[in-house]
């Protein structure tokens, strides 16, 4: 504050103006150069999004024509990336169908065949690894998940004194993941399957924090699948390849189950531990199991999520 000597109202001398002009251009020049340098990593950016994808509407707001365009775009992109022409469909839920899963804990031997069949069927990233099914090795007599072992790796399964509990999306009737999503990128369909629009998800991972079953998986990096392993039979809400930065999870193999087939994990199970079907049909296997077994378990029943995934025992 030593400026009192200047008479009020006096404009600064021209030399001072020039000096300050030079100074500010130097500052701006250096700033621009530093900014450019700091943005350098962006040079490695491969195709991140396209105008078409960027402007794409929410799944529920698309007309059939919009959807046809989107499916064509996906097909084009997949072919370009994997050299495989996929068959991508938008499969809607069937009327009068509500899917449930029942899993026989007496039979499961913990071989993890379902885990790998799921990865292959649903085009999950191999690196970094994403798996929808987690098989928990549990000590006999307890259903306390905190006692479970996720990384068991013995010579031979099953091991004495343990049972195995595969956990995947429980397709809750009251799904907390849907409630919390800020942009409606995930919702429950009328056949009971909770799906994700991978092109709408903003990747906030709130649903991941909300899911009590560790069922949701996030693409922390660009997913990678060997070309020859790609499953070309795809559905929009199902197993089409995902992008970096979005959420995914088990969707009861919509690309199969909505066309009358069984989920991949069921077909591969060597122990016959997995049962799947329409609970609205009283003759279905799952209806019979659920009406005859004295006890079945919904994981963390006390949370009120009301899973459509039931665990039961033979005895």
């Amino acid at each position, binding site marked *: 504050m030593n400026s009192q000597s200047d008479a009020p109202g006096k404009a600064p001398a021209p030399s001072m103006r020039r000096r300050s002009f030079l100074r500010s251009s130097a500052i701006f020049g250096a700033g621009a150069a530093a900014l450019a340098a700091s943005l*350098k990593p962006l040079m490695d950016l491969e195709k991140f999004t396209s105008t078409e994808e960027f402007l794409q509407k929410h799944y529920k707001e698309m007309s059939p024509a919009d959807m046809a365009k989107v499916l064509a775009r996906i097909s084009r992109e997949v072919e370009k990336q994997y050299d495989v022409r996929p068959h991508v469909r938008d499969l809607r839920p069937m009327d009068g169908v509500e899917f449930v899963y029942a899993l026989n804990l007496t039979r499961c031997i913990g071989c993890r065949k379902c885990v790998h069949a799921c990865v292959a069927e649903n085009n999950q990233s191999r690196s970094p690894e994403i798996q929808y099914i987690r098989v928990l090795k549990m000590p006999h007599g307890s259903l306390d998940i905190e006692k479970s072992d996720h990384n068991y790796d013995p010579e031979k399964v099953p091991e004495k004194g343990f049972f195995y509990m595969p956990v995947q999306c429980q397709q809750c009737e009251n799904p907390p993941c849907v409630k919390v999503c800020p942009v409606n990128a995930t919702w429950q369909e009328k056949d009971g399957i909770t799906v994700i629009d991978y092109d709408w998800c903003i990747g906030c*991972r709130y649903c991941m924090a909300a899911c009590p079953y560790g069922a949701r998986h996030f693409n922390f990096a660009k997913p990678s699948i060997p070309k020859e392993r790609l499953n070309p039979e795809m559905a929009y809400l199902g197993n089409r390849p995902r992008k970096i930065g979005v959420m995914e999870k088990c969707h009861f193999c919509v690309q199969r189950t909505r066309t009358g087939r069984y989920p991949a994990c069921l077909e591969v199970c060597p122990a016959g531990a997995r049962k799947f079907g329409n609970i609205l049909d009283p003759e279905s296997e799952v209806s019979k199991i659920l009406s005859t077994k004295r006890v079945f378990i919904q994981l963390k029943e006390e949370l009120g999520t009301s899973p459509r995934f039931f665990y039961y025992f033979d005895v």
Partner: protein
Amino acid sequence: MTQAVRNYITFLTRCARIAFVGDWRYYAWMGLLTAIVLLGINAYCKQFVHGLIVTGMGDEVSWGVYIGNFTFLVGVAAAAVMMVIPVYIYRNKELHDLVVFGELLAVAAILMCLAFVTVDLGRPDRFWHLIPGIGQLNFPASMLSWDVVVLNGYLLLNVHICGYLLYCRYCGRTPSRWFYIPFVFIAIAWAVSIHTVTAFLYVGLGGRPFWNSSIVGPRFLASAFTAGPALIILALQVIRAVTHYPISDKALLTLRSIVQVSMIINVFLLINELFKEFYTGATHVASAKYLFFGLHGHNALVPWIWTAIVFNLIAMFLLVLPVSRSLKWLNLACVLSIIGIWIEKGMGMVIPGFVPSTLGMIVEYQPSTNETLISFGIWAFGLLVYTILLRMAVPILQGRLARANEGCGVLEDGLPPKVETAIEAH
């Protein structure tokens, strides 16, 4: 009308210009902050290209320091009301001319919050999905959508209040009460809501017992009303030292009593929580055990939380003792409580919610270097914004930047000469 617009544009240009001039200390400080911001931008570009894999987060611990900092800063923003309430409700004279500094801090804090959420997104390019009308805001079901609404609303409220008051001062006009008093009162309620909503973000998750507790909301408010005013106490002293703006010790001591009471409540609530977790000994205590004592040999958070507790306790004792009437001790108490509460909300609140995971797996979290750089970048950005806002506000409040001295050129300190009539104009 057009004249009014032209006047306003002149005001904005002069404000913008003044942000680029100052003495060597100003340039050094701004240069340092800019350098850190650029490092942060660089780190963010890497994250943008390679994905969130470059952070320490993963499927088990899926939120980290970004959301931790976000939570802390929402508290800082909310704490501005702790200056507004004494001034507008209790007509506190000491704080009257300072309240705008608190509100400007809230503006800077909210901008930091928005930056922290943005860098946490996997698909920042799709942010427009959050905009009602063109996107699909899941309101009112999702607490995150509430947060988007209340944070942006709070930002607008504060920008309006500060902007209006400063502009009036610039023009030498008495502000019209109708233009800001209603907003001040809305902002008071709104401030409480931003932090409550942020707490509900966690509280609402039944699958995470560590968060699913009704005490989280009150604890958030108590800790915010400790750390926020503590930060303001420090900021005010810096302003006083650098600009000679008149700030009385009495004003600082008024804030001290707020920090004092809030800290006591904060520690009391912590004790409540600890008792409930550990005395009942139910199975859900695993996260708390992990946080305070470590679980099955995993104890990454233990040093953090004990540092926080020790800092908070020392700060509390300093604050209740008369020694903290001397600024030296008060400042120490403020620094300790800011650090303590920052840890408590980030490392001590967000992370343990994920450990053990919902399926009982223990995966520990350490922020990566890249993640840390981004966080520092955002903090530097916030300080940069706050400094610029102060650089504009202080001369306006001092009457050195006013309508009356438009076109007068600038003196060596970058400010125009003071025209005596500037203040008496109305």
